C-alpha cells in the first residue's frame, strides 16, 4: 500500500513538472492533469507488485525533513567532494600515477535506502567506486589510490556514512 502510494506520488510529481506551462488550469491543461493522474495510478499499482520489501524505507521517502537534509547534503558536502574527485581524477589521468585495489569497509548501515545512498555517493566522490554490497551491508570498493589495505570507513569516504545515517536511517 505504502509502496504504491509513494511511487505513484513520485510519478505524478515528475509528470506534472514535465508538462508545466501546457495550459490554463494553473500551469497545466485539463488533458495533461487527467493523463498524469491515470499514469500515476497505473505506475503505483504496478510498483506495489514489483518493488521489494522494506515498508519503513518508503515511509521515510514521505518525510519532508529528510528531503530538506538531502538537498543540503547535495549542494554542500556532496558537491564539494565531487569537485575534489574530478581534480583528483584529472591529475591521475594526466600523470598516470595510480595504485588501485579493492578494499572492504563496514560502515554499519542498517537500511537499504541508506546503503544505496552511500553507494552512489561513494561512486561519485574521490577515487572510489562501489563494486559490491553483501548481505551485512559491507561495501567492496575499488580504490584508485590505496593508502591502507584495511582502512576504516572514515579513511575512504570521510563523513558520508554519518550523512547517510542522518538522512536515511
Amino acid at each position: 500500500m505504502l509502496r504504491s502510494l509513494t511511487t505513484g506520488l513520485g510519478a505524478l510529481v515528475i509528470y506534472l513538472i514535465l508538462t508545466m506551462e501546457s495550459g490554463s488550469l494553473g500551469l497545466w491543461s485539463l488533458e495533461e492533469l487527467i493523463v498524469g493522474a491515470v499514469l500515476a495510478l497505473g505506475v503505483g499499482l504496478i510498483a506495489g507488485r514489483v518493488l521489494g520489501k522494506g515498508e519503513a524505507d518508503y515511509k521515510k521517502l514521505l518525510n519532508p525533513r529528510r528531503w530538506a537534509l538531502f538537498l543540503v547534503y547535495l549542494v554542500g558536502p556532496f558537491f564539494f567532494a565531487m569537485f575534489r574527485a574530478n581534480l583528483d581524477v584529472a591529475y591521475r589521468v594526466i600523470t598516470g600515477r595510480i595504485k588501485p585495489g579493492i578494499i572492504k569497509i563496514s560502515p554499519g548501515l542498517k537500511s537499504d535506502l541508506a546503503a544505496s545512498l552511500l553507494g552512489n555517493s561513494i561512486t561519485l566522490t574521490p577515487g572510489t567506486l562501489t563494486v559490491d554490497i553483501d548481505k551485512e551491508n559491507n561495501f567492496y570498493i575499488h580504490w584508485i589510490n590505496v593508502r591502507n589495505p584495511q582502512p576504516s570507513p572514515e579513511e575512504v569516504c570521510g563523513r558520508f556514512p554519518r550523512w547517510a545515517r542522518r538522512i536515511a536511517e
Partner: protein
Amino acid sequence: MVIFIYVLLGIGVLFNGLGSFALLRFPDVFTRLHGATKCTTFGSIFTILATVAYGFWGVARGIQGDLTLAIHALLALIALLLTNPTGAHAIARGARRSGVLPKRAVVDAYEGYKFEEEE
C-alpha cells in the same frame, strides 16, 4: 550573460574530454569506470547548468517556453545523478563477478568472497 554561459559550457566540455581521455589511458575496466563516471557526470552538470542559465535568461527577457527548457534540463540532471553511479556499479559488479581482476592491484579484498546465488 553570454560569457557566463560560455564559461559553464567550456568547463563542462573540458571535464567530459578528460573523461574520454581517461578511457584511453587507464589500464583496466575499474579504473576506466572512475574516469567515465566522475568526469562525465561533473562535465554534464556544467553543460546542463549552462542550459538552465540560458533558459532563465530567456524567462527574464520574456521569451515563451524557456522556463520549460530550464525545468526539463534540471530533470535531466537529476536523472543523470541517479543513474550514472548506479550503472557504473552494475558494470563493476558484473565485471568482478564474471572474473575480471583489477590490473596492478595492490590489494583485493574481494578475493575468495563467496557470493550466494540470488533467488
